[in-house]
């Protein structure tokens, strides 16, 4: 267990499934170098197969006695999906626009399908997922090389790429399948909670870019922080599949409102709700009842009195309140450990940022090619 724990809360009532978080993460971290197939952040439709396919049935995590459970390593083509590209080059010769592989599966293959019968009782909601930076990580327990560690200062779970030998037991051990094998470097990689950004007081890219403003980021022990209030004070934010025993540190405000069902004649069935509570129980455990009751009570209170701290938090007025990263804390940690804070973006990838068309891109091949020359 780390000294402090940084956590994220996602309000599922407000997620619109726009994938802006997914794109923010992908462009920052996973669009290159063997990570192309990985989604450190994804948004899946629930109920659905999820990403990777049927991840909840692939084992890992701990049993009630606390023993690590065996798991299965997903297959790239069948379970994750091969990231396909298009024949841009051939288009110049008049070819038709075609993917370079025959896609058979991919993330969100079943997007928006959900469950139930349209239009009577069909339903779904969006479930954004990142690494849970667990207090008792399955990946860490499974590693025979001690290559995975949990940072003391904030509980972020990271892979030491120098120690990692690409054995992939971590993937079997993680019940959320949020650690991935990079076949190009033969090592495992995962969500790093954008720690180089965090150390500069910036929230993770997925949280910063979220248009629905569903993500709150802060330390669990920061009693003034909205994360602490949502998780510990109001207890409306709950970990996903805590029955896996890893003590996840990404918390979800469960979906509380769903439309009523229709009868065979298309008439509204008064008092009915499309979202079965059993599904929410499966994801969030029995605590979901209390969370929903509190949310409804506070909503009512707000309607009647105009007052509710919880509703004010969930409205998410200010990024500055939603992201309490306590910048001075990291500066203090760095000072005490004698280390430098990292730049918010990995500097190795920055070169070219200000490169304009026509600039000589000498780092590509000795400076003999003018970029943009073919446009």
């Amino acid at each position, binding site marked *: 267990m780390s000294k402090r724990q940084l956590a994220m809360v996602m309000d599922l009532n407000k997620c619109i499934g726009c994938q802006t978080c997914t794109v923010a993460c992908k462009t920052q971290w996973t669009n290159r170098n063997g990570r192309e197939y990985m989604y450190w952040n994804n948004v899946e439709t629930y109920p659905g197969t999820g990403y990777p396919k049927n991840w909840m049935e692939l084992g890992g995590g701990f049993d009630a006695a606390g023993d690590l459970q065996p798991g299965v390593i997903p297959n790239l083509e069948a379970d994750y999906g091969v990231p396909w590209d298009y024949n841009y080059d051939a288009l110049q010769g008049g070819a038709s626009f075609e993917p370079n592989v025959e896609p058979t599966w991919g993330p969100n293959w079943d997007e928006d399908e959900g469950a139930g019968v349209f239009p009577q009782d069909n339903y779904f909601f969006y479930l954004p997922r990142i690494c849970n930076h667990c207090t008792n990580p399955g990946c860490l327990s499974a590693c025979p090389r001690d290559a995975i560690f949990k940072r003391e200062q904030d509980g972020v779970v990271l892979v030491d790429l120098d120690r990692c030998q*690409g054995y992939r037991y971590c993937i079997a051990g993680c019940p959320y399948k949020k650690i991935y094998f990079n*076949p190009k*470097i033969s090592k495992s990689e995962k969500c790093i909670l954008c720690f180089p950004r965090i150390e500069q007081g910036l929230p993770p890219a997925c949280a910063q870019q979220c248009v629905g403003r569903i993500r709150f980021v802060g330390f669990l022990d920061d009693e003034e922080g909205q994360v602490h209030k949502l998780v510990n004070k109001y207890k409306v934010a709950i970990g996903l599949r805590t029955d896996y025993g890893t003590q996840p540190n990404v918390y979800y405000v469960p979906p509380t409102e769903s439309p009523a069902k229709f009868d065979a004649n298309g008439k509204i069935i008064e008092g009915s709700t499309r979202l079965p509570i059993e599904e929410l129980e499966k994801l969030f455990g029995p605590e979901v009842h209390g969370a929903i009751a509190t949310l409804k009570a506070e909503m009512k209170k707000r309607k009647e009195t105009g007052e509710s701290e919880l509703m004010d938090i969930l409205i998410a007025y200010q990024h500055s309140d939603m992201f309490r990263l306590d910048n001075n804390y990291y500066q203090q940690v760095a000072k005490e450990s004698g280390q430098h804070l990292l730049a918010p973006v990995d500097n190795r990838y920055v070169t070219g940022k200000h490169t304009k068309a026509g600039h000589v*891109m000498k780092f590509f091949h000795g400076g003999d090619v003018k970029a943009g020359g073919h446009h």
Partner: protein
Amino acid sequence: MKKLTSTLVALATLATAVAADSAIDARKVTTSLDKVSNTSSVWNGAKFSTVTLYPQTTIEFNDKKANEINAENKAVKAQVAAVYNSAKIAFLIKWPDGTKNVQQGNRTDSYADGFAVQFASNYANPAELPYIGMGSEGRQALIHLQKQVVKFYEPNGNGDVATQVNPNQTELFGKDLKVFNAKVDTLASLDYEKSYVGEGFRSMTEIKDGSSNSQSTMTYGKNAWTGTLSRSLKDTYVDLNAAAIPVAFAVWDGEKMGRNGLKYLTAWTAVVFQKGDNTLVNALHGKIEGDATKGKESAIANGCTGCHQMEKTDAASLMGPSLTNIGGYATVDYLRESLVKPSAVVVPGYNRNAHSNYAWYNIENGKRVSTMPDHSWMEKADIDNIIAYLKTLKAEVK
């Protein structure tokens, strides 16, 4: 090609002629061993010995599919030869493998065939060699590993910034894009050859500073791999200038999702340079005293099976290491030490995070103390019987 054929013929004939698991006689050569492969002429006059590699079953890993396909593994026989000159030693190992598996750069579920040769840093006392799996605390092992990985890119700090982008994000098209892709290609490493030092599972650390140099090859043909390794007789980690040295071999089968502990390995095997001093050979290959039948009775009477899976037919246990193949890869001295001084070597492979309810050891004053009771009170004859029984615990040869 002619040379290759003659070597293979030599291997085939010798395979049948040599008795099982004797010491390996190293042949002195005057030729250079700087670049050795399976076709090198140094192997023409070499004497081949048979070594048996047993499936490692000490610890069960958490990969469900791999556990299923490895449940019924049999032992593998390999042919080994050693040659040396004044500066270097070279090994050739040939083992059967029905499938050639090369780890691919675009799949998450492909695994590599490979082999490793292990040396002990200190072998002055043959009764206290490093733990066979990966060395042990205070008993360092040096491991040379060669794996079949198609092509890999080490994350580096060399500032190869411009090549670390997706090709579609460059501004390049056509011929320029081809040139760019070729540039990226040159950064890939084709030879997955590494050296490590280890003092027990989870401690293994790659040697990256050039303080240990080796050169190895792997060649596939006729349903078998041939691996060669050449290294200096002396470096920072080991000094092999002696009358005899202990070595151990391991092989991985990518078809069976082999990696790290999912492997086949030999017991410590003596490589003899000069005849005369038989201390190491006797310790590793000597006659086993004791009565295995009486030993089994004694093992049951003393409650060994309470914590250890002994026979393949016994139930698996998380309480202690599985001993189903211990007779294959443990030496008599190691077994004796484990009985009378259980804390002398505590396999650190047990992951306390993974199975928090089953403590193989406790940490007292920074030292691992085994939860297994000390059996030094037993009569020597009784211990010999148990050791004789433990030596019978091993998989059959395929």
